[in-house]
């Protein structure tokens, strides 16, 4: 480890994050401070009891059970295939030493017999192997890009040698204020096992501690490869020095149960705790795990003072009273805290990535940039329970196909059905409106209204398509959510509420208030809903289909067409000239020379005339020829059209004014160059 630290590239790596010296629970550190009053800190105590798995050993009274349900640790059934025995030995002997900030407690204080127990457990764990298929070979560079862009850095440490695109060249990259969830074992993992873990973390950690980021196998391998870069297997030198004889797998297996490792970890089926620990009602707040001096065999968490205070407050409260009833809103908040949804999402003013982490979230679509944060940050979740339908909540939380923001680099991870399905009930209950908006969605009976809705969405109506695409069609402007799945996704009441007053309904939306002062807003919104409901088989709104022909046709006009644009091969200051004779040229007004000539069709003006993206255009015709570079110092002055519309390009060549004209003659270009009144001619044939 020390040698790895000394090389500069390694120092930049996420594995080299500042070490954390206490059992790190992200949301606890995010939302609880030493100066907070007891009434608040006790809530943090509950969070720690659940997240640090206290209740796996210490039972709580019935009324507290649901809230403080334990959160199982990693499944160890194939851990021997993931970690070599030295890494296992180090982790078992002192988890806090091997993985700073880990939530795993240590069990050994170095008393007599501890060394043998550690060795036995190591032997047992090393014996747990299961063959796993080879995943594709990973690409370190791609992995680095993915690690920083798909959302890993919402919780984990960004590398100091990765610069988010959004940070201006003049700004230094701000470091996260909040510590990162440690990944200090990533490099000890076998690289293929790491890729498997990244691809399907829930099968290793069913509690959703690490969510499924919906990575492909290739992407998982790429990130594994990046996390593995420059690592060498770690040697437990102390283990070698101790020279403990083999203890036998059976002894380790027995210890695994006796020492209550099974309280958190599953290794083999049918293992269970032989004796229970003290129930919370009988706990003393200065003994056991909370004692000042650790005892061997008693779990030792590295708790800081605030964590100890929080746990003591929680224990005393549980001993005193029944669990207070929680509203649906509080239950949502509790579950979002446990799952760390707040690392990415803001809900009711709480959470969302801190700025130094938010800057890594990016967009893969250039035309989304003007949407600001809406283009890259996970959405605000205010009122989401009355926004999304149950079916869509299921898709988003633990199903497939719930993503509607393909322009974002990040993805909504999957935390496992067991961890999230309660939200499908809780969110709608929590977010209901006192007086729900009324909407009549009986559109089928009044079928004609779908057509009205289509008209409103189109370019001659309210032009929803300026920003929203539909089906396979992009919008005319920014790539805001396509409306294809609207009726499956949104509750109709919310749809209407949003359209009537976007800014008040959805915090931070850029949607313009299109229905202000419209007398028939009710009916119009219902018609749009009806259209979206019946969209299969319906024509798309006016304007989405580009029916106009933007091809420039000089032969039809009977005169040359001069057209400035971004032209492939002629740069961003190009001037295209199309002649009715069917041969064309492009002039680069920076280099002041003819760069391309071609035959047949000229150019398509769509990019200039209709789209927002302003993509470079390609010569449409055939026989495209690139002309040789020019010499001399040149400066563009413009052009002059003669009576027939033929342009003469004007520029300075080494301080002398030049007039440069192409004219089609018998399928070739005749070029005339005038310098100081002296004309020379050449023929361009190709």
């Amino acid at each position, binding site marked *: 480890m020390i040698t790895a630290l000394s090389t500069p590239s390694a120092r930049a790596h996420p594995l080299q994050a500042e070490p954390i010296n206490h059992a790190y629970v992200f949301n606890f550190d995010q939302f609880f401070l030493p100066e907070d009053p007891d009434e608040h800190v006790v809530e943090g105590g509950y969070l720690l009891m659940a997240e640090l798995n206290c209740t796996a050993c210490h039972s709580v009274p019935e009324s507290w059970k649901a809230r403080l349900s334990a959160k199982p640790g990693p499944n160890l059934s194939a851990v021997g295939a993931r970690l070599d025995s030295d890494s296992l030995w180090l982790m078992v002997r002192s988890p806090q030493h091997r993985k700073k900030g880990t939530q795993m407690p240590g069990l050994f204080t170095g008393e007599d017999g501890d060394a043998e127990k550690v060795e036995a457990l190591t032997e047992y764990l090393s014996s747990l192997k299961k063959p796993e298929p080879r995943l594709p070979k990973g690409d370190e560079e791609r992995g680095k890009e993915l690690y920083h862009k798909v959302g890993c850095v919402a919780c984990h440490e960004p590398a100091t040698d990765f610069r988010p695109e959004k940070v*201006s060249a003049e700004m230094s990259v701000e470091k996260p204020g909040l510590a990162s969830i440690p990944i200090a074992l990533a490099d000890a993992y076998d690289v293929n096992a790491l890729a498997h873990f990244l691809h399907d973390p829930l099968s290793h950690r069913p509690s959703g501690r690490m969510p499924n980021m919906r990575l492909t196998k290739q992407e998982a391998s790429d990130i594994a490869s990046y996390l593995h870069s420059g690592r060498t297997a770690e040697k437990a030198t102390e283990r070698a020095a101790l020279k403990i004889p083999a203890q036998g797998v059976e002894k380790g297996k027995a210890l695994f149960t006796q020492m209550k490792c099974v309280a958190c970890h599953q290794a083999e089926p049918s293992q269970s705790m032989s004796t229970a620990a003290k129930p919370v009602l009988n706990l003393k707040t200065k003994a056991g795990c909370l004692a000042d001096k650790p005892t061997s065999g008693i779990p030792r968490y590295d708790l800081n003072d605030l964590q100890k205070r929080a746990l003591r407050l929680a224990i005393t409260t549980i001993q005193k009273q029944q669990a207070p009833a929680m509203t649906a809103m509080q239950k949502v908040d509790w579950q979002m805290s446990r799952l760390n949804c707040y690392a990415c999402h803001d809900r009711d003013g709480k959470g969302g990535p801190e700025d130094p982490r938010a800057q890594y979230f990016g967009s893969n679509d250039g035309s989304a940039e003007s949407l600001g944060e809406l283009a890259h940050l996970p959405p605000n979740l205010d009122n989401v329970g009355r926004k999304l339908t149950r079916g869509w909540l299921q898709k988003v939380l633990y199903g497939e196909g719930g993503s509607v923001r393909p322009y974002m680099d990040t993805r909504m991870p999957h935390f496992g059905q067991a961890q999230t399905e309660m939200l499908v009930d809780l969110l709608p209950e929590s977010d209901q409106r006192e007086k729900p908006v009324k909407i009549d969605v009986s559109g089928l009976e009044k079928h004609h209204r779908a057509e009205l809705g289509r008209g409103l969405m189109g370019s001659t109506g309210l032009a929803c398509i300026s920003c929203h695409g539909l089906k396979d069609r992009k919008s005319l402007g920014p790539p805001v959510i396509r409306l294809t799945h609207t009726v499956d996704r949104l509750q109709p009441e919310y749809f209407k509420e949003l359209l009537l007053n976007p800014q008040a309904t959805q915090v931070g939306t850029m949607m313009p208030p299109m229905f202000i002062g419209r007398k028939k807003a009710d009916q119009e919104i219902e018609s749009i809903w009806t259209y979206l409901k019946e969209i299969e088989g319906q024509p798309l709104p006016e304007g989405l289909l580009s029916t106009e022909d933007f091809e420039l046709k000089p032969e039809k006009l009977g005169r040359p067409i001069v*057209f400035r644009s*971004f032209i492939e091969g002629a740069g961003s200051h190009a001037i295209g000239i199309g002649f009715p004779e069917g041969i064309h040229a492009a002039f680069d007004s920076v280099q002041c020379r003819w760069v391309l000539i071609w035959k047949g069709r000229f150019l398509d003006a769509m990019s200039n005339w209709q789209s927002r993206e302003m993509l470079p255009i390609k010569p449409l015709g055939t026989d495209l020829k690139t002309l040789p570079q020019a010499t001399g110092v040149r400066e563009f002055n413009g052009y002059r*059209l003669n009576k027939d519309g033929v342009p003469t390009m004007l520029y300075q060549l080494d301080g002398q004014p030049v007039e440069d004209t192409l004219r089609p003659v018998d399928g070739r270009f005749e070029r005339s160059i005038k310098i100081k009144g002296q004309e020379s001619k050449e023929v361009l044939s190709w």
Partner: protein
Amino acid sequence: MVTKSLALGFLALSYQLLAQDQADYYRTVTLETPSGVNMEASGLAVLPDGKLAVAIRKGEVWIIQNPSAEPPTVANLGYQLFASGMHEILGLAYHEGDLYVTQRSEVTRLRDTDGDGSADEYQTASKGWGVSGAYHEYAYGPVFDRDGNMHNTLNCTMGKTWSGAGDEAKHPLWRGWSIITPKGSTTASGFSAGFRSPCGIGLNAEGDIFGADQQGNWTPTSPIMHIRKGAFFGHADSLADAKRTASPVKPPAKLLDGITVAEAVTQVPGYCLPAVWLPYVKFGQSTTGLRCDLTGGKFGPFEKQMFVGEFVLSGINRVFMEKIDGEYQGACFPFVNGLQSATLTLNFLTDGSMIVGQSNRGWNSYGNRAYGLQRLVPTGKVPLEVMKMEALKGGFKFTFTQPIKPTDWSKTKAQNYTYLLTSKYGSPEVDPKPLQLTDWNLSADGLSLTVKCSNLRAGYVHEFELPEITGQNNQKLWHRLCAYTLNRIP
């Protein structure tokens, strides 16, 4: 929460105002446009003979022979194509006998040397800024200063750059700047920095240059700024070019992310506050072109004030500015909303009516037509409005367009707040406090009203929603909302 509820209150108010009939004071005349031409009007120049030159985004310039003709049919207006083939024109000016258009990559001077009514000379009048191929690199202007130098504004680069643009894809020069092209030269260089999407550039009555920018990163809400040499208005992307020897802007050692604009004045050396902030949503979402009313009163009682286009609400806001300690600051007022399409640019015709150029390509607007031209023609009935709002040593002075009756001034809702200078998109209104108002005093002639305020804060917007006010002729106050950007307390 305070911010939120107040903001929504104002929002509801402005919706209500939309319904009010502005036709009492200004008639809206919609100009018919030739079929087959998307008249996405992005630049308007009035020629000495009263004709109107219209630049459109697809790269053409049209001349309208009789822009005030009614009924405004194509035949009556008389459209004539003057120039074509240019690359997204977003600005047009008439200067010393010639038309100047701003394309993506250059300013071009157009001349009709043979007098056949269409341009035959397309001369490069200014160039030298970077064009990387990214879609957001819009270029606006020009305007000409007192000495005949040309000024333009350039968006900062957003979106994907194009490798085909060569070195300019790696670093496009002067993006997010206002540029100057000295008289006699055709090469532009940086003049002031820190813009995001400065869609408006115009002169005030004194010939000072003003820009209008749009909310986004490093731009907390849409501002109107006084453009002068070496000023830096806060957007970080422009600072890369501040290191050049040609740069008149001294780059701050460090730009702080997330401090208030009031703090930035002291903590970021060189940072200049805009003269006026237009609070988001209340005054729309994106300012566009701006123009000073030099109609000599023909357009109404707002002579020498600035009118600023508003894209999303398809409207126009009004801005009054004054100089405090030699620096411009002032107030904004709603003017009209609900035009047929997004306002991009505006100007005044020789008859004193306002002509508005419109296009909503790329972003939606309340007005649902894709493009067009409309005129606002004063009906002769003078609206009762706050004509000016001036800062006093310990309060404000409102001057009305007509004498008003006294009312219950305690019904005034007023607050001050500031904004964050941040790399995030826009800023909420931060640190809001209700204004402590006392000593309302209406002058004997009923035209001016003063109020004392015990908690004025420099660097803060002071926003007022006045009570219902009735004029001595029983007319109702047209707009009750106004917001004064108090950069300096007199």
